[in-house]
């Protein structure tokens, strides 16, 4: 395969710079969050591992960009099948961590299949919708849901990973609404929602594990149980709030390294960042993510075909949803559902998957002038 010159000329340096910058900030924050509180104490190697994953992820992203994303369309159902298989594997052979079975051990490292699956899922839905004509009607809405979303959502709930399940549904909804609804379909969605909320609420509540119930209760009333689950939220708020306007300074934060804040380098990394960089730094971070997402939506508008457009939309929405749930959780305005912050949270699979996703975005934008041949 030959590398088109235009590929380099039209390369989306902005998106590339944004995600790389965010990841470097993430590694810096991981370093600060996990540093030993004792002078001269042992330094855990999380940040090194994350750095290796970043290098691997950048390589993967470049590889993705160099292939035309049309290949993704062709192999989407295969990818989807692989994803479902991985989810099945994790259900039967998964490693349990923090009360949920989410990891698969492969040799020396373990990874989270749901992180990989969400990508295949966006690709497959994009293909499926790009091949339907006109607005989404009743029948095709139900077909899409039961064909593509129902099985993985149930499997992810089984892990249990409520956060990812919700995200899968939201991604589906956002993609379909991008395509456009028929009036009947909107009416049905509203009707189903109204009728099913009490039912589903009840069934879901019964089906929830104790720690999930606690998280919901803690979200609604964090002061009830300050040393338990509400403790996460409170300590996160303390970390963020104590940053004030300019922050305590890099490597000057105390909530993370002194272990007051749990999950400091994974789900709650934003709290560590906000403590050290304050409102000023946090606002900049918010703007970086907003730029990435808006650029993704712009890519969707400019994409050369509907598949590319849906792909860019789905990925942008996915970033948005992850970002909003994660930051909202650390700020105490969303329940604690255990969702990582894209590009910053510690975790190799997540980083790799997000870079691949960003690679697809870049690929769609870079190839917007190409014609079919």
């Amino acid at each position: 395969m030959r590398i088109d010159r235009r590929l380099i000329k039209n390369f989306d340096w902005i998106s590339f710079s944004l995600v790389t910058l965010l990841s470097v900030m993430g590694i810096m924050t991981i370093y600060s969050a996990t540093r030993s509180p004792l002078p001269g104490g042992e330094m855990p190697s999380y940040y090194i591992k994350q750095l290796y994953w970043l290098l691997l992820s950048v390589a993967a992203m470049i590889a993705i960009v160099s292939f035309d994303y049309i290949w993704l369309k062709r192999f989407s159902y295969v990818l989807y099948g692989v994803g479902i298989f991985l989810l099945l594997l994790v259900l039967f052979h998964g490693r349990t961590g923090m009360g949920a079975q989410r990891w698969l051990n492969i040799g020396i490292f373990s990874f989270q299949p749901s992180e990989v699956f969400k990508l295949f899922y966006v690709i497959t839905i994009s293909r499926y919708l790009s091949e339907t004509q006109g607005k989404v009607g009743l029948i095709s809405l139900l077909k899409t849901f039961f064909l593509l979303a129902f099985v993985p959502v149930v499997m992810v709930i089984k892990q249990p990973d409520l956060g990812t399940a919700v995200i899968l549904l939201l991604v589906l909804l956002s993609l379909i609404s991008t395509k456009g609804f028929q009036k009947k379909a909107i009416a049905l969605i509203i009707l189903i929602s109204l009728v099913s909320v009490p039912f589903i609420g009840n069934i879901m509540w019964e089906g929830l594990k104790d720690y999930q119930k606690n998280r919901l209760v803690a979200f609604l009333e964090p002061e009830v149980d300050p040393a338990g689950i509400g403790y996460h939220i409170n300590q996160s708020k303390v970390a963020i709030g104590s940053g004030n306007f300019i922050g305590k300074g890099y490597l000057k934060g105390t909530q993370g390294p002194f272990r007051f804040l749990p999950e400091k380098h994974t789900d709650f990394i934003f709290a560590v960042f906000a403590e050290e960089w304050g409102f000023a730094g946090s606002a900049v971070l918010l703007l970086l993510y907003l730029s990435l997402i808006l650029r993704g939506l712009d890519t969707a508008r400019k994409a050369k075909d509907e598949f590319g457009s849906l792909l860019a939309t789905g990925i942008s929405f996915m970033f948005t949803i992850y970002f909003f749930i994660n930051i909202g959780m650390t700020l105490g305005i969303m329940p604690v559902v255990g969702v990582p912050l894209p590009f910053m949270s510690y975790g190799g699979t997540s980083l790799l998957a997000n870079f691949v996703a960003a690679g697809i975005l870049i690929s769609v934008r870079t190839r917007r002038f190409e014609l079919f041949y």
Partner: protein
Amino acid sequence: MLAGYLIVALFFILAIRLWQLQILQGSEYRKLSEENRLRIIRIAAPRGIIYDRNSIALVKNTPYYTVSLNPQALGRVDIPYLAELLKIDRDYLTEKINEQQKRSLYEPIRLREGLSAKEIALIEARRSDFPGLAIEVDVSRDYLFGSVGAHLIGYLGKPNEFQSRNPDFRDVPSDAFIGQWGIERLFDRQLRGTPGERIIEVDALGRELRLLREKSAVRGEDMRLAMDIHLQKEAEESFGEKTGALVAMKPDSGEILAFVSKPSFDPNLFARGIKYRQWEELNQNRKLPLLNRALQSQYPPGSTFKIVTAIAAMEEGAIDTDTKATCNGGIAYGRWHFGCWRKTGHGTLSLHRALVESCDVYFYEAGKKLGIDKLASYAKELGLGRESGLEMVRERRGLIPDTKWKQEKRKQPWYLGETFNAAIGQGYVAVTPFQMAQMMSTVANGGYIYRPSLLMLGSKPEPIEKVNIKQETLDIVKKALFGVVNENGGTGWSAKSSMVSICGKTGTAQVVGLRKESKYLTEMQRDHAWFVAFAPYEAPEVALSVMVEHGGHGGAAAAPIAKRAIEAYMKSGIQAAGASQSMSPRTVPGSIGQNVQSAEDRNENRQTSH
């Protein structure tokens, strides 16, 4: 496009929330994060030591251990194991933890206090099993002489609600011991010292990471009491099971040498964190061990008051040394009969013998000539009916009645019969044991009143008053008081000492109006026994009053206690002076002490001496 706006709106929500947490509530959260990270560990200041006048330590500082738990380490604590280690009930522990948890996230939960050093060692050995378990050390006291001098020395205890709000205790932590009684309370500020503190940085498990600042504790001032522990101890022991009080003073300075209130209590109970049951027991004890009888109880002085009557009558010219009276066992006044304690009568006697034998009739006559108002004014001048100024407890003032008082309080005129009663220290007259000791001190030192001092004084103080009584009058009275103890027929014969020349006066204060032989009365109806004394006769070094509640006759019940106490003080003086100087004059029995002998022929007064 719509999606774009939606996303920008979402980001705005996040930014607003950030603004709220970091800017609007920023300082609050900054404080919370500091509270997370910083622990202020108080270092208790060693409390000043309390010594007696001969520099014998009366108290010792002891550590008071408290085990507490950092609530943030709760999740990692095995509660049943912890309950077993601390020897407390598991349910009680769980309840305590839950209760405290509701109140504060950061404040350590105090699990148990007052542990012994042995228990602490045991816990220390298992410390690694319990992250977040902290052992705090506070300073408490060991009262080395137990209940001896408890009313004077006092005790430490936890501050009550009123005290914790008092600005005097602002820098005292709410759980620290403070002086609650006696010297410990009166001089708490000096004894307390200034606690130091260590500001350390800790992690979520409460492990110390770094010492940020340290201020060392400043030891409290030592206190040297005027009290002589040998005298105090001997005095308390000589009371045995009897209730009562003894106050001994140095006549030439007002220093308080002994301060006894019996029964006493063990101040160590308080200093080790008194249990409710023990507190109840002390409070409900019928003998009221917590009552400071030297200041908080008042009694009729009985015949010890004749000292005052004699002085007043001589000063006012109502009598002189030659004035005689004839006692036939009582006098008639109207339709009343005022009896002498000795029903067979004393015959004709002068003032000297009237004091020695404590003849009531003589003092009825003297009182009649003198009048109540003049008697009262001398009594007041000698310090009776007046507060001590010690501020140790809420004390009783006693009562010296006169016509004005009777008119104001009782709306009745004064009757002569009441003068008779007052002249022999009965009727309305009431005094505290402290007042009687001070009165005796003033008689002994030639008419000076010193400010009473609980602390040893460095130099001889200036008297605060000179009573308007002629030296000659005092000399006559002192000679008679010597006779009371040392002459034939003296009512205070049982205080006679071969070691030192003791002067004194017995008193038997009626509790009930009837004059009956004591064997017919129940214990609570029995008379109070008094003995007031000073010694040595020539150059008084100690003046005291002894009061035995329901002790019966003063000569029998109170005088021996006074004698033992005085002798103990003299011996203690020898011990103390022995090291530095040759014996001081006070240790040599006076010549007059040698003159009067023959303890054998002290006839029938043995049983009924007044």
